[in-house]
């Protein structure tokens, strides 16, 4: 979580810049606020298991981020955390399985699927890649985020632009790739 918060903090301006092309220029600032709150909450109230850490972090994101990213990222972490249960140590395979459940919950909540130019374009391949290795997850997420450039947005605020959303990398897919990269970094 600390690595995720640091990554978001470092890249907030870039996310906001991407968001200003096809959204409303606040994605970086919003996630930065949310992950800062997550860090503070976990420092104040440390959780015993990986599942509990993710669940608490997700709840915190829902309560602080707002916008679409609050509920969507909040749901991703909460549902992944719940799927991990209360195991004290978690294998990569178990995490991959739990992340798949979390990603499915995000797809259901947002009503989106891969190809709609959303965070799912990074998260779905990341969950698949994680079955192989952390590095594979990171590469798949980054490729997925880059792959959103030629797509036309069909969900979220960028969808209002129609054809004009083509040619811009999706900020949500980019922040997802960033979080997967942070995960790969701490497990390397």
């Amino acid at each position, binding site marked *: 979580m600390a690595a995720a918060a640091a990554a978001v903090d470092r890249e907030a301006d870039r996310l906001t810049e991407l968001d200003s092309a096809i959204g409303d220029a606040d994605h970086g600032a919003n996630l930065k606020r949310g992950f800062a709150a997550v860090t503070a909450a976990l420092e104040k109230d440390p959780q015993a298991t990986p599942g509990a850490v993710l669940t608490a972090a997700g709840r915190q994101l829902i*309560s602080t981020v*707002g916008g679409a990213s609050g509920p969507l990222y909040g749901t991703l972490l909460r549902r992944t955390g719940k799927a991990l249960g209360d195991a004290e140590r978690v294998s990569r395979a178990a995490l991959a399985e739990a992340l798949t459940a979390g990603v499915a919950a995000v797809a259901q909540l947002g009503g989106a699927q891969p190809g709609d130019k959303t965070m799912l374009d990074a998260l779905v391949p990341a969950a698949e890649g994680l079955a192989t290795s952390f590095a594979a997850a990171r590469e798949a997420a980054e490729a997925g985020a880059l792959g959103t450039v030629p797509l036309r947005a069909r969900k979220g605020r960028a969808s209002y632009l129609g054809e004009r959303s083509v040619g811009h990398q999706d900020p949500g897919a980019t922040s997802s790739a960033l979080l997967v990269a942070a995960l790969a970094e701490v497990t390397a």
Partner: protein
Amino acid sequence: MRMLINVPETVVADALRGMAAVHPELTVDVENRVVLRRDAPVAGQVALVSGGGSGHEPLHAGFVGPGMLAAACPGEVFTSPVPDQMVRAAAAVDSGAGVLFVVKNYTGDVLNFEMAAELAEDEGIQVAKVLVDDDVAVTDSLYTAGRRGTGATLFVEKIAGAAAEEGAPLERVEAVARRVNERSRSFGVALSACTTPAKGSPTFALPDGELELGIGIHGEPGRERRPMMTSGEIADFAVDAVLDDLRPRGPVLALVNGMGATPLLELYGFTAEVQRVLGERGVPVARTLVGNYVTSLDMAGCSVTLCEADEELLRLWDAPVRTPALRWGR
């Protein structure tokens, strides 16, 4: 960037402190970001609760008061509020008659209000929701997030608020709100981009001599860019875009709305052109409201919203309202 702010992080809280200082008829909870009617909950009355990103002032907090909203939840700039705010607001204003959430159709607003509705119902509060989606610039299809909610939000909040003030039950207030939304359409035009405090530079680049047609209220670019047009040409374009989608059989309510940086001198001139176009198209106008009501920070530009009225909607529109930004009648 030159803005009348301290730091971007406290813009919303600072604005709420100002509202609290000058509007004793409101309860402003700065810490939890909830603005309430001072006299809430009003016994036997359905309570309207709305909210959304800040940056659209006076929407929504400026419309809290008798005859309109019972509470508003301001989010960060252009970012929906979080469920905690809405649940807190609903609990504070519910008299037992139930709460109507007025939600603009943006993914963030929809998701957060949905979560809030579930949580509020867990606390025994009866909740209904109305989704405002009036923007004809956005194609409504199964494969998009649907039309945006813009100017019609004011019509929904005013008219449904009047129904609630009369003591109508929740299902009736909800039905009126839905009817207003179904009969309302909007179209917006930007003459400049806006600057969010967090970013500090314009959200898109609009070269001199050009304008954006079909914008929303978040500084996102519109559907199309064209060489600058006259006020009359913009009125023709905007009204026709609305009338392509809405074929009013009776008189309309009209809102000529400024996006934040267009002075009334220009808005009134534009209103004259809107009246001309409506006259030419044979659409009678019952009431017109002109001003900055649903804004996009410092964006220059305007939007036109029309609502096909009927006797009941007109009566509810004319009913007294007493809020910081909208007040008439008794």
